[in-house]
């Protein structure tokens, strides 16, 4: 119905509008009505002629123009409007909040008074309520008593109108009366302790009231000096919002210049018991106390700004959504909603953005500002008269990130680490990059896609046993900082650990991020949790692909002054080395013989740097024993050699125009790359005529040798016949001739067949297909009865084109992608291993899987291209499970050949003919309309299952990887659930060929081994041909020993007797009618007969069948 409203604005408002305009309006009404209702399918819009060519009004013209010029697609504008509707609070919710706030305020006003006692005396508090404070050191001076608050006010986002769903937080400031406090309370945590006591007193009183649902303690942004009380309403609304009660001093109670970042407010003697002559500054302590003093002033400031700019609230809401999707919105040192509104206010007051801008423009300009401004070096200030307040330089000395509030005394980013700000900047610049890219779904990437750390960072490490940080604070001599952070050793040590990591990883990484520990919440009846109780710290890194894996860390020359520093950092690992250029420098050499080990270099570095602590590598469980990259490289080298030799062959009647690889192994994506191997001859029989080995009965199946497909295009010529059979015979002749030449010149064992030529080279088998470029055309042509030459597409021609044109092209393109992104192949192989293990290998084919993975690298927005196989695999699972396959085409822009217009064209074609297209639609530059790779499979049902299993696997994997306490058995995701299947055929493991088998490289020549002999796939093919219309068959192609059979849902419905439909059926006669049903016993018997020697047992789960 909302559609109607916005349409109504477009309807001419003049009252003297002619009659003819009435009709289209009505038509439109009815149309939008059914669009908003049950109708979920998109139809191409059909507007009537009169509707399209109606004279436009000025208003309508303006609206259309705005939509066209401001946004590259008006869709984005509408999408943002819809999103805002989703996150905005409803009127009903606001009423609930208001009434609850009233109740709470009324209750708070009636808090009973208590007699004055020493601060350390807690006897007035009942034992059911604890003080939300870690009392270290135990005692401090001062007196305290409970009195009703001086005032209770709403502060923060709710009164400002920038409060958003979910987790609605309403902030309530309770002013502690002036007589409870003393102006000197700033010193030695007296004020924070009184604040905590006051909260405990409120909690004790509120606990007896029935108007409060539940009560929890928490603390503001992880700062233990600023505890808060969380209240929820009673009954069923309890989860709809949370009221956060802050206790504050009366405004202006403390003098702001006491909180100068270079002043000391915690005495060393009180804190440590030691005497010192020099008191260190306590900037963090100062800012946390000062923060309590200013919320009302901040609210006033923001309200003033907001009243000037109409889109302020919406802009802030969008920015908050953006931050939340990037997990920057909460925890210690976060960039929260308050900072977001302050930043927009800063841009507005400094006239970088104008008051008349829309929410969309506000978000855009803010991100642009963030991307281009480094607050760690050039802080910004909202203060009006900077003379009376501390200078920016003084702030920079004390804090890593500087953003000064309107009063000029408070750094609002006091707790933020430089790394967090860099992460924010990185996110903003990535967002700006894809925002203008019309080929990316900007809205979705910008605001709708969650970016959890585990799917964003290339590597994640966890620091467990946080308690060890306490001792390291001592070792690093951080006592004064520890005092400043009031004993929170995690926050104290964090910047030092970060800088250590940054120094150690140096050029290898692009970005270092860390998790923001969430605000702890605990019940009012329990003690405040210790600092070590928070979840382990996670560090994420984005790797530089070129440098991340280098095994050598070259330091400064031995005689330079920096050498000592280098030695200190690397300790015993550092040694003097002489290099080829003659330089003698300090250097560290990490273990890195294979690619797989090289990938682990960052991990080695981090373990070395943090060897004091227990570092946990999140991905170690996902590590493959060998990543097979070296093997793939060998295959590619061997292929390159063969291709060179083919080019040089002389004596062929026609010359070779192209040699192209068409096999996953040649693009580094074969799950188990072929290994050169040595044969055990006792396991084979010999074929006399061609000196070849054949499998022997009674012996285990020989290791599977994958023939590596190579397409060899021959020159076009008038000599080629124009007849399909003749072309096939000529091709055979070429195979024979090529074989003879290769044998003669290079002594390779060859075996020509009508369809291909097998070449046994370097322990690998290459299968060469000779191709003639006009053959598909010949296959399509036929002469009809009238003698007219007609060209009709057919399956045979398509299959040939697939094999000789599309596959080689895909292989070479993806080979190029691998050169750009070194971990592309490894991601593909993990993904395909998972698909195989989950028995989806036949539905999501190898080529499809490779394309899906390629899309992760080519269009990573809002991420960056995966830098490690593990994160790539996680994103692959996420893509499978979250992409809207029904309504969107997945465009894989190989080689960047598609322009924006192509994207719209693809989308329009897709929506127009959705019903007739494959369920999983992948468009590539060479194939915009058909999705040739997914034409055959998967079906709707199978895709649904793939999506479901992928979502489950992803959930499981992320939980396991992020939780270091669990036993890491990620192979769980590689075990398929077999309970859904009707019949299980267990295979004899000895007859199931395995891909992996190591051995020595055999010499070229010699007997030809058994090639491409796989009993399981032969059996599967026979089963599918015989029973394909009754059942589905699934098997893990990588050595799975079970074949799962699922009856089709309609298989057992009796159908009338027809001569074309009696396969494997028996007739049941009822009266005059003859119906057929599948002959199940005979079919099961056939399973056994057809797989004789391969089958171990057959498990029919008859109890599941609904016959």
């Amino acid at each position, binding site marked *: 119905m909302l559609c109607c409203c916005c349409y109504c604005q477009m309807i001419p408002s003049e009252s003297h509008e002619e009659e003819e305009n009435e009709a289209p309006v009505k038509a439109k009404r009815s149309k939008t009505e059914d669009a908003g209702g049950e109708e979920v399918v998109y139809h191409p819009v059909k507007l009537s002629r009169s509707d399209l060519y109606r004279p436009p009004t000025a208003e309508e013209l303006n609206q*259309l123009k705005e939509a066209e010029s401001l946004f590259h697609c008006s869709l984005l504008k509408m999408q943002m409007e819809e999103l805002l*509707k989703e996150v905005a609070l409803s009127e009903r919710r606001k009423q609930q909040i208001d009434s609850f706030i009233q109740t709470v305020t009324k209750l708070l006003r009636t808090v009973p008074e208590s007699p004055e006692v020493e601060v350390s005396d807690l006897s007035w508090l009942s034992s059911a309520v604890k003080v939300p404070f870690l009392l270290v050191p135990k005692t401090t001076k001062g007196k305290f008593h409970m009195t009703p608050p001086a005032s209770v006010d709403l502060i923060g986002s709710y009164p400002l109108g920038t409060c958003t769903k979910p987790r609605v937080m309403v902030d309530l400031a309770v002013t502690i009366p002036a007589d409870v406090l003393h102006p000197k309370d700033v010193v030695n945590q007296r004020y924070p302790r009184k604040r905590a006591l006051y909260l405990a007193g409120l909690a004790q009183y509120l606990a007896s009231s029935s108007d409060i649902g539940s009560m929890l303690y928490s603390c503001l942004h992880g700062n233990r000096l600023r505890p808060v009380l969380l209240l929820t309403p009673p009954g069923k609304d309890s989860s709809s919002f949370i009221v956060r009660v802050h206790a504050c001093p009366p405004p202006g109670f403390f003098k702001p210049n006491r909180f100068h970042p270079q002043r000391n407010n915690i005495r060393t003697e009180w804190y440590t018991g030691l005497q010192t002559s020099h008191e260190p500054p306590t900037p963090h302590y100062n800012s946390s106390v000062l923060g309590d003093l200013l919320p009302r002033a901040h609210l006033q400031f923001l309200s003033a700004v907001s009243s000037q700019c109409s889109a302020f609230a919406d802009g802030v809401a969008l920015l908050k959504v953006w931050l939340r999707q990037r997990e920057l919105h909460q925890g210690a040192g976060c960039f929260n909603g308050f900072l977001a509104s302050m930043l927009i206010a800063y841009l507005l007051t400094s006239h970088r953005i104008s008051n008349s801008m829309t929410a969309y423009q506000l978000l855009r300009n803010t991100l642009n500002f963030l991307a281009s401004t480094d607050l760690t070096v050039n802080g910004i200030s909202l203060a009006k008269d900077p003379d009376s307040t501390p200078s920016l330089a003084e702030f920079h000395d004390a804090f890593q990130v500087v953003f000064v509030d309107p009063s000029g005394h408070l750094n609002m980013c006091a707790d933020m680490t430089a790394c967090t700000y860099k992460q924010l900047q990185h996110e903003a610049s990535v967002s700006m990059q894809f925002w203008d890219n019309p080929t990316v779904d900007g809205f979705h990437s910008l605001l709708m896609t969650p970016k959890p750390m585990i799917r964003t960072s290339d590597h994640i490490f966890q620091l467990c046993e946080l308690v060890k940080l306490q001792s390291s604070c001592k070792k690093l001599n951080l006592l004064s900082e520890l005092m400043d952070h009031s004993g929170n050793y995690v926050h104290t040590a964090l910047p030092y650990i970060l800088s250590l990591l940054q120094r150690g990883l140096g050029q290898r990484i692009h970005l270092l991020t860390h998790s923001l520990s969430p605000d702890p919440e605990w019940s009012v009846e329990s003690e405040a949790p210790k600092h070590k109780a928070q979840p382990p710290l996670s560090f994420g890194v984005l790797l530089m692909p070129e440098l991340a894996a280098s095994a050598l860390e070259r330091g400064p020359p031995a005689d330079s002054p920096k050498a000592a520093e280098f030695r200190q950092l690397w300790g015993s690992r550092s040694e003097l080395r002489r290099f080829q250029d003659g330089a003698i420098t300090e250097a560290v050499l990490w273990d890195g013989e294979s690619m797989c080990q090289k990938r682990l270099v960052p991990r080695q570095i981090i373990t070395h740097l943090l060897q004091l602590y227990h570092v946990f590598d999140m991905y170690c469980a996902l590590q493959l024993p060998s990543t097979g990259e070296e093997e793939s490289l060998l295959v590619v080298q061997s292929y390159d050699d063969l291709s060179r030799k083919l080019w040089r062959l002389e004596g062929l009647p026609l010359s070779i125009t192209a040699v192209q690889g068409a096999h996953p192994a040649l693009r580094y994506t074969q799950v188990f790359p072929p290994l050169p191997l040595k044969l055990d001859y006792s396991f084979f029989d010999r074929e006399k005529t061609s000196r070849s080995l054949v499998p022997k009965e009674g012996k285990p199946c020989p290791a599977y040798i994958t023939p590596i497909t190579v397409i060899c295009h021959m020159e076009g010529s008038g000599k080629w016949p124009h007849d399909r059979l003749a072309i096939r015979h000529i091709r055979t002749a070429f195979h024979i001739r090529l074989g003879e030449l290769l044998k003669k010149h290079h002594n390779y064992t060859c075996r020509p067949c009508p369809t291909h030529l097998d070449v046994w080279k370097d322990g690998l088998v290459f299968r060469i297909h000779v191709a003639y470029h006009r053959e598909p055309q010949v296959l399509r042509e036929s002469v009809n009865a009238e*003698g007219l030459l007609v060209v009709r597409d057919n399956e045979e021609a398509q299959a040939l084109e697939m094999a000789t044109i599309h596959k080689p092209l895909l292989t070479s393109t993806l080979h190029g992608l691998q050169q750009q992104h070194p971990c592309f192949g490894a991601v593909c192989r993990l993904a395909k291993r998972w698909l195989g293990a989950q028995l989806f290998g036949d539905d999501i084919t190898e080529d499809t899987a490779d394309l899906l993975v390629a899309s992760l690298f080519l269009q990573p927005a809002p991420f960056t291209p995966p830098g490690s196989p593990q994160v790539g695999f996680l994103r692959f699972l996420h893509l499978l499970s979250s992409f809207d396959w029904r309504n969107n085409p997945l465009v894989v822009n190989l080689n960047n050949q598609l322009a924006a217009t192509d994207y719209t064209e693809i989308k329009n074609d897709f929506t127009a003919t959705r019903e007739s297209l494959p369920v999983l639609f992948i468009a590539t530059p060479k194939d915009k309309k058909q999705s040739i790779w997914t034409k055959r499979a998967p079906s709707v049902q199978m895709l649904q299952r793939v999506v479901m299993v992928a979502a489950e696997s992803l959930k499981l994997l992320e939980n396991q990887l992020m939780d270091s306490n669990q036993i890491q058995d990620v192979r769980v995701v590689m075990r398929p659930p077999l309970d859904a299947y009707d019949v299980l055929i267990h295979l004899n493991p000895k007859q199931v060929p395995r891909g992996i088998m190591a051995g020595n490289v055999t010499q070229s020549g010699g007997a030809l081994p058994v090639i491409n002999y796989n009993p399981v796939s032969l059996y599967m093919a*026979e089963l599918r041909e015989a029973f394909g219309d009754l059942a589905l068959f699934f098997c893990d192609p990588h050595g799975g020993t079970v074949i799962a059979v699922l009856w089709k849902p309609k298989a057992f419905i009796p159908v009338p007797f027809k001569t074309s439909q009696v396969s494997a059926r028996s007739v049941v006669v009822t009266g005059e009618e003859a119906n057929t049903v599948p002959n199940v016993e005979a079919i099961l018997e056939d399973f056994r007969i057809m797989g004789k020697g391969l089958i171990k047992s057959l498990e029919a789960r008859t109890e599941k069948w609904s016959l």
Partner: protein
Amino acid sequence: MAPSKKKHASSQPCIIPGGFTELSLQFSSDSAAQHKLYVKEHKVRAQKSSHRPLDRTLFVLNIPPYCSEGVVKELFSQFGCVQSVELRDHPGSFQDSGPKLSRFFKPVAKQGFRVGYVVFENSSSLKAAKSHPHDVSLVVCTEQRPVKTGVQKWIQQYTESFINPDKLQQIVDSFMEGYDKRKEEEAERQRKEAEQQQEDEEGWVKVTRGSKGTKGRPHSEAANERTLQKEMRKKKRKELLNFYTWQHRNTQKEHIADLRKKFEEDKQRIALLRAQRKFKPY
């Protein structure tokens, strides 16, 4: 022969509606389950073919994949001498498949359940088959006639797939010879036709639909289309665009209509997305 002895036994041939007789078939004598074959005399109205004489051909449905033509021939020879067996994926008329191909060049046959046309030497065998009692099964694999399946079969297939390159070359050569010959014959025929169109001594030309006649008009679909398009283009080139005021106005109108259409499209897309709750960010 054999069936006449069993006729007086209690079992009767099982005949189902449609005129088919049900025969049981099991793989070996100790198999637990049986397939049912349905047989009937081959009967078609129109086409008469020497390959499938009407009175002697038995039409068999549901032949399991492990029964090759040889096996079927032997199975049915208990009813009388079998002249030939033809197995096919679907019932249908007999098709001639061009020049004879060697086994290596034949397309791979599908290994599913098939239908068969069994041609007996005598028409009496047909009756014998149709009156075979349904509870006496035909046995595919016996000791005298082992049928290989599973691993044994695949190894055999693999072994048989080898061919000596010289032999393969021979096959190719002989085929190409035949092909060239056919080509030549064709060329000869065309030359003769062309000759016929030359003037004879008296100056007469015989007009036929020969190669010369077809030269004038396009002989393929694509060419046909091309000519049509050429005509269209020619017409278009002569038109003036944005020349008159009304034309200019029309273009502007088209532009606004385009914008409107796009706006409507977007709106509908939004409605669709909203229906799917696509705007919930978390």
